[in-house]
């Protein structure tokens, strides 16, 4: 677990990682862009600072692949907002990507700390 005062990993997100994060956020239920951005930030304890702007092209891409779907709804403070939800295909994709991610992390850890295991 990185320390609190470590510099945020802004701009260093691995390619495809943002997709994973968005899909994971949507597992909990529908959300609009603003919520997703905040959720990612908060749940990573501010380490992963997503540039909020880059979220929207990613959402668009995911929707294009059929992993999420969108609809217009009304937000908690009564504003028209575009909501996103996970599709079954997205759920399946999330499982696959998550397990690939775990593998990757394990592999990197094995390389970095071979002795401590």
């Amino acid at each position, binding site marked *: 677990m990185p320390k609190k005062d470590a510099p945020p990993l802004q701009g260093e997100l691995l390619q495809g990682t943002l997709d994973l994060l968005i899909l994971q956020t949507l597992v909990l239920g529908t959300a609009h862009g603003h919520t997703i951005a905040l959720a990612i930030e908060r749940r990573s304890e501010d380490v992963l600072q997503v540039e909020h702007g880059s979220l*929207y*092209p990613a959402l*668009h891409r995911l929707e*294009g692949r059929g992993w999420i779907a969108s609809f217009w709804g009304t937000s908690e403070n009564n*504003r028209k907002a*575009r909501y996103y939800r996970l599709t079954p295909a997205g759920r399946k994709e999330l499982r696959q990507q998550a397990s690939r991610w775990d593998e990757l992390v394990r592999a990197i850890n094995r390389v970095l700390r071979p002795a401590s295991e």
Partner: protein
Amino acid sequence: MGWTRFFRRRAWDKERARELETYLQMETDENIARGMLAEEARYAARRKLGNPTFIREEIYGMNSIGFLENVWQDLRYAVRVLGKSPGFTLFAVGILALGIAANTAIFSIADAVLLRPLPYRDAGRLVMVWEDGSSYGFPRDTPAPGNFSDWRARNHVFDDMAAFKWDNLNLSDEGSPEHLIGQAVSANLFSVLGVSPFLGRDFRVDHNAPGTAHVAIISHGLWVRRFASDPRILGRQIRLNSDRYTVIGVMPRGFLYPTRDSEIWVAWQLTPEELAIHDSHYLHVVARLKPGVPLRSANADMTTIAKQLEREHPDTNAKVGAYVTPLRDELTGDVRPAILVLTGAVCFVLLIACANIANLLLARATGKRRELAMRLTLGASRSRIVCQMLTESVLLAVLGGSLGLALSVWGTQFLAALVPTGIAPLDESAIDRHVLLFNVAVSIGTGILFGVIPALRISSLNLVSSLKYGGRSGVGSGGQRVRDVLVVSEVALAIVLLAGAALMVRSFANLVRVDPGFRADHVLVLRTPMQMQKYNTQAKRTAFYDQVLERVEHLPGVLAAGYTTWIPLTNEGGATGITIEGHAEPAPGQMPIPNARIVSRNYMKALGMKLVEGRLFDEHDGTGTQLVALINQTMARSFWPGEDLVGKRFKRGTFREDVPWITIVGIVGDVHQAGPAQPARAEMYLPYQQQEFFPPDYLAVRTSGEPLLVAESVRQQVWSVDKQQAVADVMPLEQLVGENLAPKRMQASLLGGFAGLALLLASLGIYAVLSFAVTQRTQEIGDGPFARAEAVSDWRGCWPGGGPGTLANVGTLTVWRQCERSTFVCRRDFGFGRSHAARMLHSGAPSDARRSSGRAPLRINLARDALRERKRYERVAKLFLREFRVTSCSNHQVLLPVGPVGHRRGIRGRRQL
């Protein structure tokens, strides 16, 4: 990404804009909740989101097919840009259309003649076989039947060999008698070529046997024309000469062997005696190589057989070789090098056009520097700008190409004569697929070729200086150098072309100047193919000729008429061996073989040949009198060198043959039987009453007026002698001569035309570069020439580095003319010269000029005497405004916009004043 999204991407974009707006509002709300001021909260939200336009652009980009989108955008932009400068566009499209049209037209010929496969099965294996009779003056001789049958029996390299001879076929059953171009062929000719009849069947081997029924196969054209495409033609009897032939087949449309004009092929009944003749050479032999046998082996095999035959028949075959040539080479003949030369020429023309347009584009691009610099600064990628400029140039080229295609369709008809008769003619009604492809490829390639240099140059411009100085520096002298290189190449290419064209025109002029040995004007030529079955004795034939000549010579408007075996330009050969009285028996292969022409008494007169020595034939040279001959100068020189000739005798045939002697009565001038390019052979003329081993066919009629005017009455006179006699090839002799020279004339004029076009384009190129350079340096020049009476050196400054030798001169000349023009304007309009004007304007200039080396405007005080002539001055001022872009002008001062003035000679020049 689906297509629906591509088409709905605007709606999508709107939606995204709304979504982003929602985000901003929410974030702002939150920020306010955190205690920020409304304004600050909004800014913070924006910071957090990033640039919404970028985001939208990114999503928009995901919805579109990037490349297509860009191309479409560039294309619309290019159309707008080109539409805005219609002058440039028209000029460029015009130049390109000319260049591409020339290329397309020549390509369509090259495609038809050199590239398109011949319409025969596996045509690469087809060859023609010739006798090599170089030692007799016939390096490419038509084989003798005996040699053909021996070659066929002994070779190891051919699948099969076929032979044919040209035949006189007089079709005379229904309608008027008609002379057909046809061949007597060996039965296997079509199978060797690999073409089967379209209707009916091919010849069988037994059709060649003597004494069997005569059979014929007709061409598709003849079937349609003469027999109205009647399918019952098969088995029908037609009358050819005096024999009946059964039509057994119709060849497919487009079959054109040996030439386009061939209309009928008859099975040739070869007697064993004929197949043993080794000393009469009149066959054409076509053969199919066995698969995988190279030409070299075929030649080796033929040489071996020729050597064997030489041993076996020393009398006839001494020094007679044999060799093969590919059929395509035979069919294309000497058109091939001509087409290659022309292809090179049109490539040059197109390259020059490219350099021209590249130059113009460079000049225009320099004008657009500011705009482009701005776009680059705003974040346009260089590749995007290069793409956009290339789109513009490719659009230009494609426009030019389409126009060029239309032009080439029109131009190709003039080139159609370049296609030899053994090759399928150009289909003028349709644009060939190959030609279309070629046109499109050349257009696009051209567009990229001339577009790439300006595009690369401009995209690498120096942003700061371009923005700062706008129209003045930036691309700078580097761009000038590129333009110089382009112009130098243009001129170099044009000069190469000009030199080539000059050579060709020169050699053509030499050809025309050769004395052909006869006068072609006022001579009508026609052919009455002798019907040998009908006129089967010499007496009958002599009577026929006598009667025809008698009647024709008495026609009004006819000065003389004469029969001959072959009119000049129709047969370079027609030779026979002779033995000279008093000479020892020649070694094998050393027998003199002059050309022989069997003629009527007035033939020399009709043709306008010159008598050099002795006398022409007269009425005493006839049947039963002394055998006489006229010989040409070459024959006299070669066989009786330095001897007094008249009265000398020779005989036809070998030393031992017992035939009567023929006495030489005169010597006539050489006639170039094969055209002016070929030297005349030894030749003798014999009266038809005495000798007629080659029965005369051609009638030459010298007329007092237009030769074609008597054509009809001559024809009627022939028919009044024999109404079944075909009359063919009626034309003025001049036409025959013209046709003989036509290919060379065409090549020379085409090459000349292309060279002219190249020169024109190159001059335009120079003009464009100079006028551009002049515009660019207007302010320097504005100082220079008006400061000094001697303007040239200053104008020369437009040409950095002076340019290479000749070019510099050309450049200087053009520039000088430009100077002169403006001087003349002064002089003509205002009655004073440039130096006068300069003095008027510059009396106070030197000190100002020295100060003005920076960017301050140059003020030139006007002399007092100019003020006195105020009206005059105003006109001068207006002129300056127009010619030198003077920014403003008052009664006292002319304000010149000064850029980096002061380098080069402007300032120094002023000091001298």
